């Protein structure tokens, strides 16, 4: 079942007298439970697509159906509600609340949505059970990113969006995080979309969308993804 259907999606930014088309008339479909990777160089428009998918930005034109509802038509409040109940977001720089413990950071997300997962269980799921009462500043980068993933997961969202989730991590930790995301996708059946510029990760995805200059360069389905642990780059 198609969970995401983008049709003629475009996003323009006006910078003074110039109009920049960050996303230029793209269409794609993502099936439920797939591990999708959006790949491209800087400025290719991949983060813009992720922001549109996450309801953090609205397209200039086109439609973006998520589970059948066109979020391109949503107002500010509807977008907030969509982010609240349907989306989990993982950032490159974690963006954890520095004044809350790991568990409280997870609760922060779970307390506002309709059908949340148990915070402690989610932390254990990402391997942070023993770190639940630590503050972000007391955890390593990898642990913080696990915390951010737990926070995104605890909302029990339909879609998990990850923007360069390994960008701030070392090679080994980055690999572990990607493996975690893949496992979560497969075990929980959630749709996971990872944005990255690292082409070496391409074989790990079920679906690979390559982007260039705001357009989709290629859309590839991979029937036999390679486990990330087996990859070297």
């Amino acid at each position: 079942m198609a969970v995401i259907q983008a049709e003629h999606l475009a996003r323009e930014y006006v910078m003074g007298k110039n109009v920049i088309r960050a996303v230029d008339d793209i269409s794609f479909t993502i099936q439920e439970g797939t591990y999708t990777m959006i790949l491209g160089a800087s400025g290719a428009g991949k983060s813009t697509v992720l922001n549109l998918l996450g309801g953090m930005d609205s397209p200039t034109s086109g439609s973006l159906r998520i589970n059948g509802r066109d979020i391109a038509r949503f107002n500010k409040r509807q977008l907030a509600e969509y982010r609240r109940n349907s989306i989990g977001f993982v950032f490159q720089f974690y963006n954890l609340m520095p004044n809350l413990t790991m568990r409280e950071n997870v609760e922060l997300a779970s307390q506002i949505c309709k059908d949340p997962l148990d915070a402690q269980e989610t932390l254990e799921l990402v391997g942070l059970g023993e770190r639940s009462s630590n503050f972000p500043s007391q955890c390593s980068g990898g642990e913080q990113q696990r915390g951010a993933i737990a926070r995104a997961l605890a909302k029990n969202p339909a879609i998990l969006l990850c923007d360069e989730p390994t960008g701030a991590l070392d090679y080994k930790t980055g690999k572990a995080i990607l493996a975690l995301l893949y496992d979560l996708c497969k075990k929980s059946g959630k749709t996971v979309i990872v944005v990255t510029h690292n082409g070496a990760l391409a074989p790990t995805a079920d679906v690979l969308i390559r982007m260039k200059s705001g357009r989709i360069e290629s859309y590839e389905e991979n029937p036999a993804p390679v486990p990330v642990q087996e990859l070297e780059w």
Partner: protein
Amino acid sequence: MIWRNFLRDLRQTAPRLISVMVITMIAVMVYTALNGVLYHVQQVTAAYGQTQNVADYWISGAGLDRSDCRVLEQIDGVAGVQPRITWEAQERGNEDVQLLVYAVADWAINTPYLVGGALPADEREMAVSDVFAAANGLSVGDSYEMLLTGTDQVLRLRISGLVKSPECLYHVNATTPMPELGRYGFAYCSQDVLSGLMGSNRYNQICITTSDEVDDAALRRAVDERLGDKVVNVLAREDNLAADRLRGMTEDLTPILRLFPILFFLCAVLLMVSNMSRLIESGRSAIGTFKALGYSDRTILWYYLLHAVLVVLVGFPLGVAPNGLIARLLVETLSTGCDLPVYGLANDYRSWGQALALTVLCCVGSAFFVARSLLKESPAQCMRPQPPKSTKPVLLEKLPFLWRRLGFNQKYIIRNALRNKARMLTCVVGIAFCMGLVLAAFALRDAVTHYAGALTSNQNKYDLMVDLGAGVTEGQYRRLAASANTEGAEFEMTTAGWFYAPGRMTTAALTVAEDQSWLHLYDPYAQGVLNLPEDGAVLSQSMADELNVTTGDTVTVRFTGDSRYYTMKVSRILRGVSGAYVGRGFWRSLGRPYVPTTAYAAAADRTALAAELDRYDFVDGWQTRETVTDAAAEQLSSASLVAYILIVFGGSLACVVIYNLGIMSFLEQIRSLATLMVLGFYDKEIKRLQLSENIIFAAGGICAGIPMGIGLSYVIIALLSDMPLQVNTRPVSFVLSCAVTLLFALLVNWMIGRKMREIDMLGALKSVE
């Protein structure tokens, strides 16, 4: 290119820069304006005193002559001596218009300041107060006739000049406790004009000037030793209300005028330093980049110092620009009633310099230290994000049963507040300061209202106040009391008196009131029937201060036209009264004649009584209670302007503090707020979270501000010692001041709430922390 970047950088840092500029401006404005007031008054009084050679001592006595002047000239430190005769007079045929005549031997001391015409050339001329002349339609060349008090002698003198006098700066006597130069003026003439009154070369006053280093006690001793019992009183300039009123009053306000600018500056310094530090700190990665590109430390240092220099360059001139206006307004308020020549405002450039130095030190200094410490780091270190602050569980977390009960919002706010203790403390103190000032303003207003209320409901229960003619007989005033239109009447006699205490003297009104009164009470705050002491006098607090006496001490009193001295015990000292009060019984025991000057009548029929009063030839006039009480209350409202101005300054600074801290908190948490937005928090929920922190700080500030405001109101009212005010703050004032402070905080919240709409979720989350 680096400077082009500087200019573009300014656009981003503008809100914070403007905030520091506003703080700098207010601090400079308050500091220079209030110090300027003191400086201006000092300069003007010193310049006026110096050019007109105002006396340092007024020696009053009987039978003083030229040989006494020669004796005084020989005392160490005495620079000049001027004998003269002073005499009260009234306009011929109009006892309402009075004059104090100074018949002088020369013009060397207390030289009148000529406004028009010339000083008297011979014994047929005199110079009068220009204000008196204007009020009575007199001009140079006119002749004026006056009757010398206590004599039958009428003088007819030609007005040669219109003058102001340095010794009559605040010209008052017993019946005009506030200067009314139109009704009670002064005149200068040659000693020959009055020589007939005392005999040739006989005087009742000698004025002396002294060198700066003269010792007051030694001089008084020397005068006493050499002139013996000829001397009645030696009055120094600082004790002479008429000559020293302005300086004295400014001195009374000096604690406020000195304290407030320092408080303001301290508060502003705190914000300047913290804002400048944060501003430079925020340029951390840019400093690293500049260094990595090879720019010299000096160039980078200048780059950031220029931000601070810009703050000073804009903030300082804006601060001193309205200086003239504010100082002039304050000086005019302070010098109400003082008869001064027109002086241009003397700018206190020293305080300007101090303010500039302090501003440069705070802004440029803090920028310098922060920038220099960043420059010491390597480019790589600078470009790396700052290590996160170490986080420890707060004390409350050690009480799990309590901590677990708290919701996420409460935990978030508590941790946030406790992790930024300095910010929390500055915020609470800033709001407390605002609350304190607002409460003090309300308390002051209440004190004035309370006094006005006391005037109508307690002190004055009569219907009409009647001015009785000078020659009123007992039969006449008894007739008034017994009239069918009068339900009750009380009489008062007001006379002038010279009050002496060891080493001190003052002139004041002495009122002889009924032993027991209820229509017009001497104490505005008393209720019901009020008795006057049987064994002594009631003195006003300011008079007791001037004479340096307390309850139980004795004062000596001399009255016009009576060379005897009367001793009175000080039975009570009250803040709310004017001058001195004695009961009729006590007055009679002194053996002094009793001729009432005022009657207070409760009317059975006010209109009929008014009509009856108009028919009596012994009645000079009458006024309704409302007119009298309104005039008394009006005097206070104008005088309290000074305090209000100070409070407005404080309030505006506190507003800036609240805004500044609120916006700082917002900017520091913009990333967390953006995260909450991404997580799906609604705008309303995010606002509640962020703004409830501000409200909690405001509540803390309000709680701390209440005792501060109460203390401040006592200080302000104590400092305004000349006003018969009492602290009487109504509960509604507490509520109102809390509401006003909360309103400031809510206003700031509203402004920040609007700014929240501008949060760029994507931009905020993309960057490194």
